[in-house]
């Protein structure tokens, strides 16, 4: 009897195994179909955007489908009772197996239950579990196969020309950004080399620039690249603005022009005009009064200094500027014309104005000057000035006055040295800015058609601005010269665009109008408003260099001020 029970259970187990296997096959076919459909959707989503379908989707989707199928199978697989029910149904046993299993679970085996088990066992002996056969879902399988085949076909499609171009461009941009970053790093090193001056280091803060350059990354994204370069450029412009010494330069240039006219100071004048400040500082050393020289020679030297100082002071006065150069020129003039007083004033003034590294002897000389004040330095100087000066008393005061002149000359020399260093640092930063702008322009041009040359190269130093720029592609031409710009800055006429030396955009174009007479009845306010909007939107663009932005901004502000003035 127990053998028969085992037979019934074994039969049901065999049926269950077969049923679960069949269910697994069914689910597998359906999962493959679902995977095929999903792959087609994925492929279409790529193809419609112009991309080649990445092959990694195939194993991913298939694995997901199989995992889902496995889960489904685990949920749906037949239990023992279900298998018993199926056995009854399939072999038409009229619930014999189900009832037998139910009675067995209730531990009912005797009497009529035993008869029932016998009956069920004998019924099962006449059938075989292998009769439970799998019927292949041909239609579903065909559909699944078609879906998978179609999805496989879609992988053969290559990228669209547009995407290929974009990809190449991205690769190009990546390489270019890599190169640009290297260039910027080298340029920064150069700047740091040039700016090995405590004062300049304080201004440019190399660590900050280092950090920014370190943050630069190689990217295939044009906008990202432009954004990071624009950010760096903005920072560089801030540094540039700190290094601003235009007024000093202008004044020294003017002084140079004046000095060029005089034979005694022609060499110094030439250096100043040519902006060779270091050489000019060395030249200034020649004007120092030699203490070991005879009083006569000292007087001559003083006369020479006096003449130079006078011309310089005149130039400063004409320029009506309150820059450091003007102050130094004035001080030199005072020191040369009233050596004793100048020395005092120099010593007094040097406390606040002397650079840190300046020698301290001027102060001691000042002290000396003040001590000699009572003993007739003033008188001696006036005497000396009136009669040409003679005697040990006069020579003594001249000697002390010569100290003051020498101090002033030293200060001016130091100022010129500093100016020279600043100029070099500025030049290096400007060249970095220029190369950054060029890189941005190159990236912008390389990145695609339709974008205008976003920024132009304003050659402020040269005068003409070969400005490719503006909102629309094209070339602009500015007839404005640097002299005008400089005049504008000196006269304060902001309606004239101030260009940046050697660098910067041009936003001015010359528009020729046909000759004719007539008057405009309409107001230009609407037009200006429209231009302002365009300009503002232009300014907001991240891929526009800071130079161009500031130029445009300044231009419209100057217009606004002019209107208000009117």
């Amino acid at each position, binding site marked *: 009897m127990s053998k028969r029970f085992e037979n019934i259970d074994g039969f049901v187990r065999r049926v269950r195994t077969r049923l679960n296997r069949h269910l697994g096959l069914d689910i597998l076919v359906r999962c493959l179909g679902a995977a095929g459909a999903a792959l087609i959707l994925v492929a279409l989503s790529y193809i419609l955007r112009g991309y080649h379908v990445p092959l990694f989707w195939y194993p991913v989707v298939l694995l997901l489908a199989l995992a889902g199928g496995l889960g489904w199978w685990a949920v749906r697989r037949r239990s023992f009772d279900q298998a018993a029910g199926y056995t009854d149904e399939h072999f038409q046993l*009229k*619930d*014999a197996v189900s009832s037998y299993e*139910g009675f067995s679970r209730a531990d009912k085996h005797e009497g009529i239950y035993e008869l029932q088990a016998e009956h069920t066992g004998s019924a099962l002996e006449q059938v075989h579990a292998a009769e439970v056969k799998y019927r292949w879902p041909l239609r579903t399988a065909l559909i699944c196969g078609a879906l998978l085949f179609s999805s496989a076909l879609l992988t053969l499609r290559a990228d669209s020309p547009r995407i290929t171009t974009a990809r190449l461009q991205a690769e190009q941009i990546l390489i270019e950004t890599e190169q640009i970053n290297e260039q910027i790093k080298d340029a920064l090193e150069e700047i740091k080399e040039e700016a090995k001056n405590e004062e300049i280091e304080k201004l440019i803060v190399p660590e900050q620039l280092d950090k920014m350059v370190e943050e630069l990354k190689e990217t295939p994204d044009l906008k990202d690249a432009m954004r990071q370069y624009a950010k760096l450029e903005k920072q560089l412009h801030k540094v540039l603005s700190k290094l601003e010494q235009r007024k000093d330069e202008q004044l020294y240039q003017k002084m140079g022009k004046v000095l060029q006219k005089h034979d005694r100071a022609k060499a110094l004048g030439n250096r100043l005009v040519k902006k060779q400040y270091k050489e000019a500082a060395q030249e200034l050393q020649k004007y120092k009064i030699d203490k070991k020289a005879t009083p006569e020679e000292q007087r001559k030297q003083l006369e020479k200094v006096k003449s130079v100082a006078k011309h310089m002071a005149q130039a400063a006065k004409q320029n009506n500027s309150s820059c450091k150069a003007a102050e130094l020129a004035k001080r030199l003039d005072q020191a040369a014309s009233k050596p004793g007083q100048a020395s005092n004033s120099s010593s007094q003034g040097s406390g606040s104005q002397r650079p840190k590294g300046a020698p301290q002897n001027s102060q001691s000389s000042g002290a000396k000057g003040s001590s000699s004040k009572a003993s007739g330095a003033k008188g001696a100087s006036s005497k000396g000035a009136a009669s040409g000066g003679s005697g040990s008393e006069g020579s003594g005061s001249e000697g002390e006055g010569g100290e003051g002149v020498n101090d002033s000359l030293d200060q001016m020399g130091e100022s010129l040295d500093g100016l020279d260093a600043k100029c070099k640092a500025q030049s290096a930063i400007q060249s970095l800015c220029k190369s950054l702008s060029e890189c941005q322009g190159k990236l912008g041009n390389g990145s695609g058609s339709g974008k205008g040359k976003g920024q132009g190269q304003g050659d402020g130093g040269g005068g003409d601005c070969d400005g490719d720029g503006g909102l629309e592609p094209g070339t602009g031409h500015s007839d404005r010269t640097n002299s005008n710009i400089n005049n504008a800055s000196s006269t304060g006429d902001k309606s004239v665009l101030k260009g940046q030396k050697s660098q910067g955009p041009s936003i001015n174009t010359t528009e020729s109008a046909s000759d004719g007479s007539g008057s405009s009845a309409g107001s230009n306010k609407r037009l200006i408003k429209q231009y302002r909007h365009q300009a503002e939107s232009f300014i907001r663009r991240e891929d526009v260099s800071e130079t161009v932005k500031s130029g445009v901004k300044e231009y419209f502000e100057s217009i606004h001020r002019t209107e208000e003035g009117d």
Partner: protein
Amino acid sequence: MTTRTVSAKQAIEHFCTTFAAIKKEISKFIVGQEDVIEDVLSAVVCGGHVLLEGVPGLGKTALVQTISRALHLKFKRIQFTPDLLPADVVGSNILIQKDNEKVFQFEPGPVFCNILLADEINRATPKTQSALLETMQEKCVTVAGTTHPLDKPFFVLATQNPIEQDGTYPLPEAQLDRFFFKLHVEMPSHKEFSQIIKRTGGTTEPEINIVATGEDMLKMGRIVRHIPIDETVLNYLVHVVRLTHPTVDQAPEAVRKYVRHGASPRAAQAILAASRVRAMLAGRYHVARDDINAVAVPAMRHRLILSFEGEAEGMTADALIQEIVTRMSVARSA
């Protein structure tokens, strides 16, 4: 094989043999109507009452008479008419002279028998019909405060004519529910028709032998109750019965629309008992869902009370029960 198993096997064999012998004996006289004969015998074995419905002349009365002859049981017939009184059915106390005294003595009515044929039961008044209620359910009669038990076994086989409705009193639901089966006696086929004529048109009638006794019937009834039913099959049975109720959520739309009241638990009891008989007759020792499906219609058709819409649209209880059974079978296959 244990003793219990052997005795169970013997009892079942006795059941099957006796049932087959009775059926065979009845079939000597009754031509065709095999399903009706089997169902009537199933009901009788299970101790239930049967309501036979059919047009006159189809052999309803003859069937009942033949069964009584084959079973060697006391048979009585009441022809129900509108003027029939309850006392005419159950009996009454009559005044008699006994030992020079006049005393009331209970005179048993025709219900005191083993097989009662209540012919055209729907022609009697409800009062008289109700007189049968106690006898059918309790199998006893109470007259003047005295309860008189009926003989065992006791079966009521009632007939009614479905087409002639004038002057009839439809049976109340309470009484209908007491019938185990309601069977439709159908018109015989051409072949059966000619066979009937041949058998009854001659000079001799077939002789009906006694093949079982009342004791056999009781014994058969006892073994029926031993046939087991699995829990899942029992649940199926309960589902089938419950789905006849319009208030049950899973009930078919037609049931919700056309049924006023569904089948009672007594219907489920009848179905289970009849299914057991069917299982044994099929040589099985357990009840199958197919057995339930087979007996669901005769066991529930008279227990379903159709709504006004159901009556108006000519909906039948048979169709509704068949729909439920089909639905359950489909659900089982799925």
